[in-house]
């Protein structure tokens, strides 16, 4: 939100220049609107979001996710599918402060717990990716874990680091525990290791800082930056306190992103955003282009989403092995990373499980019954994806590739259905629909609130599953029923206003498409896009057993409907979020 655009200040916290920051756009006086006085004369700071209905909060959230989405996850772009990422965590004395913006907890705690989440999310999103962690404190950088493919190792190391760091803070009361933060040292350590990462993958560094200054042995921008550029390392940063100019510069130059968190949730959003593979950057295209000039130049352009069209996509083929799972009656030796295997009851015996934090991955040996057999050297390993301990072949499973595919073919963002528009359309289509009004709904309501009314169909005989006319008696007096569709207009009510509210009877008919009933979510059958009939409207409550009370609670949220642009099915906000953020499938599009 803040700090997403360049600034030329030396340290952003002290001397902000009056442009380009979101908060600067507000006029200073507008903030006074948020402050009010209560009856006792106390000043209250009003949270602007508190006034919003759930519906507009959901809209805001969608908007925010779309705008802060660093990786533009909704778009079909060329992405780095094989990532190598170093996470640099600032454990300097700045991180030992309690931060009121973060629930008054130590920044260190928040940072490490968010990092643990990030590690899990990272491997979930990039099963083929590698991750390493560097801690910076006392002006020095320490490699906590090297690049590797086992989430377990990182989470163990992070939790251990948290314990030991907290002990240090606890032991010495002095405020200088942790020392200074050195960005350069951290980046050098991570960069040196990343330099050995194979070229077909991405090289990225994510810095999480709490410090307001960096204490470097050399010139970060002069010495380190050119080397970062030449190695194609992308540096991103997330700041827990305030923006540092040097982070911003690094991010700008290397094509990364710099962000400053507003609160805990925003911090999490920012960090988790980096779990999605980033688009292949223009700078790396240029690098490729430079390299290609050496080769035979051939200008057959492939289009590539948003990047410069002159750049051609270059791919490289990586040899990978697809092992098969093999179970035997007797335990045999397998190579393991020490991650999953010791937790399961599969392992009959294992050698040296204590050395889990061994620098080399995949070097533990255990006896188990099941293992994956490397297709090249026939050695067995316990968990995938990993590199074969014997021949070094990259071993993966086809599901891991499939897991990564959704980044390439994301579910298209759903469009919000504007209720007024929909109703207008229905009316002009003359779809056997007459506008009906109940008087109390009209005054002062804007288009969106002029909603259809859900009548709770208290009981509908089974026969109505196939013949809808039978259920008509449970709606209001006379109905125009479309043969199989459950939207029924109440034409007989003789209030003559012009709002577009109508009565829908949600009956028990089958929904195999949203055209069967567009008032319930295709995914979870939640009734959406309508309000329960208000019990106060007198002429209706006679013939209706109304259990609107329970539905009334969801009312504000459930007016939102989202439609898949491809299969035209309608979804509720919960399913919209779930489908896009967790499942990455659209159930409607899958059954065409």
């Amino acid at each position, binding site marked *: 939100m803040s700090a997403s655009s360049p600034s030329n200040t030396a340290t952003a916290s002290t001397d902000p220049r009056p442009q380009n920051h979101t908060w600067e756009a507000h006029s200073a006086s507008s903030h006074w609107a948020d402050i009010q006085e209560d009856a006792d004369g106390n000043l209250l700071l009003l949270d602007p979001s508190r006034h919003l209905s759930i519906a507009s909060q959901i809209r805001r959230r969608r908007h925010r996710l779309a705008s802060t989405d660093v990786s533009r996850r909704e778009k079909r772009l060329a992405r780095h599918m094989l990532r190598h990422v170093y996470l640099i965590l600032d454990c300097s004395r700045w991180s030992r402060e309690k931060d009121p913006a973060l629930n008054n907890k130590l920044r260190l705690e928040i940072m490490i717990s968010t990092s643990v989440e990030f590690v899990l999310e990272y491997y979930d999103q990039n099963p083929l990716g590698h991750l390493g962690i560097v801690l910076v404190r006392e002006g020095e950088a320490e490699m906590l874990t090297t690049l590797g493919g086992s989430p377990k190792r990182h989470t163990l190391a992070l939790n251990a680091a948290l314990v030991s760091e907290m002990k240090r803070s606890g032991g010495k009361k002095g405020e200088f525990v942790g020392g200074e933060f050195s960005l350069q040292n951290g980046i050098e350590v991570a960069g040196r290791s990343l330099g050995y990462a194979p070229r077909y993958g991405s090289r990225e560094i994510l810095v999480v800082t709490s410090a307001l200054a960096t204490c470097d042995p050399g010139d970060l921008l002069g010495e380190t930056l050119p080397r970062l550029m030449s190695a194609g390392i992308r540096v991103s940063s997330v700041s827990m306190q305030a923006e540092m100019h040097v982070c911003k510069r690094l991010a700008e130059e290397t094509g990364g992103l710099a962000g400053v968190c507003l609160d805990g949730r925003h911090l999490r959003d920012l960090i988790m955003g980096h779990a999605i593979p980033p688009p292949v950057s223009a700078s790396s295209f240029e690098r490729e282009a430079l390299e290609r000039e050496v080769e035979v130049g051939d200008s057959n352009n492939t289009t590539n989403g948003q990047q410069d069209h002159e750049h051609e996509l270059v791919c490289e*083929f990586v040899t990978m092995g697809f092992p098969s799972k093999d179970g035997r009656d007797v335990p045999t030796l397998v190579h393991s990373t020490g991650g999953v295997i010791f937790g399961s009851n599969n392992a009959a015996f294992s050698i040296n499980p204590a050395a889990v934090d061994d620098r080399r991955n995949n070097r533990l040996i255990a006896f188990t019954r099941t293992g994956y057999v490397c297709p090249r050297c026939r050695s067995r390993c316990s968990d995938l994806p990993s590199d074969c301990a014997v021949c070094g072949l990259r071993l993966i499973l086809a599901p891991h590739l499939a897991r990564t595919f959704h980044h390439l*073919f994301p579910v298209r963002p759903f469009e919000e259905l504007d209720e007024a528009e929909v109703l207008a359309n229905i009316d002009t289509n003359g779809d056997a629909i007459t506008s009906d009004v109940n008087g109390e709904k009209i005054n002062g309501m804007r288009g969106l609130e002029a909603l259809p009314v859900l009548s709770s169909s208290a009981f509908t005989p089974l026969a109505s599953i196939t013949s809808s006319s039978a259920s008509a008696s449970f709606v209001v007096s006379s109905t125009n029923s479309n043969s199989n569709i459950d939207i029924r207009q109440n034409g007989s009510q003789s209030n003559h206003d012009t709002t577009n509210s109508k009565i829908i009877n949600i009956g*028990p008919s089958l929904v195999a498409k949203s055209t069967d009933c567009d008032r319930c979510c*295709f995914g979870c059958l939640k009734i959406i896009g309508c309000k329960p009939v208000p019990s106060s409207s007198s002429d209706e409550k006679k013939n209706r057993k109304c259990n609107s009370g329970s539905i009334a609670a969801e009312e504000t949220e459930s007016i939102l409907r989202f439609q898949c642009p491809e299969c035209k099915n309608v979804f509720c906000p919960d399913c919209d979020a779930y489908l896009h953020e967790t499942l990455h499938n659209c159930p409607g599009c899958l059954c065409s």
Partner: protein
Amino acid sequence: MATNPPTLLLLILDLSPSTWGHRSIIRTAKDKALAAKKKSSAGPAVIDDVIESSLAFIAAFCALNRDNVVVVIGATESEVGVVYPRKGGDGSMNDVVNSRGSERVDRGLMNDYVRLGVAELVKRAAERREQTEKQREQSGEKIIPVEEGVAIASALSLALCIINRFMVASHAGVSALSDATTTYQRRDDEGVLALMGGDTGSGSNAQEPPQRGLLTPRTLIIQSSPDRTSDYNALMNCAFAAHKQNVVIDGCFIPSDRKEDPTSSPYLEQIVHQTSGNTGNGIYLSVPKGPAQVNGALSEVLLSVFLPPIHLRKEMNLPKLNQVDFRARCFETGECIDIGKVCNQCLSIFKERPRERCWTCGAKVRLKANGGSAKRMKVDT
């Protein structure tokens, strides 16, 4: 059994008319032959057997715990639908989610809904098929035939959506949207976030992970049609999402006894394996051919294999999934390969390295001579 938590069972039924029509033809022919020899039927199961057995299974399942909830989803070639509970009416989804009413599963209603729903779905699928056939005849040209197989991926996605809804509801407390405290929590982010256990670290990082919802979700897929290749990625997405939420997926494949038909469903095997990684108790079973599929034997199979609650499974001798075929197929030739070349842009798998361009994404292949020399770029220090 005091600690046995109530379970949410999502039952996915393969209702593809072409498969079941086929089965019933085989069955009639075989039964005739066997009846001539005065033997009882040994043919493949037909859809009636499956529906009957499923209903028996659900009845038994509901008897385990009166708080158990069942949702039945039917899938045909090109449609999926939730057959029980329905969106409105008596015992609607709303009522079930908010656990209104004394029992969460109304069995009489369920039997009716399932039978009627199955009939309706099958009818619609058949009509659709007929229509496309007619169109093809009219236009004279070849319209791409409806893809074989059944929309399992879509049904599974639907099932996960429903599980998600239950979890959101139970996490926020039953019908607690009106509750002031939870509404406050739901501000901004949480309202639409899947509030599944563990997933809700946002803003509350240092808190202990929230308790699981009241219901333990699980899914049972009963499939008889062959796998659909185009569904593979979607199925894997489902598997990973389910794994994330600790949803156990069980698979039951009912093969026909013709030699040409597949005896097992590799995709189903894979998703069962993928989701059972943590707890190791997803079950995959390919029902044996012959008499195990008829005369109520199918109910017995379902009851003895899939009924036990998840936490009891490790104590029982249930079918284990030891050998799973994870070999990938070459995108070009379609053959199974052990070692393949994977494009770093689009992750296509090829047996042989393409010469100039990746066949899938069209990216230019970096020449190896060049790649070899500059394979590693050091950051000199």
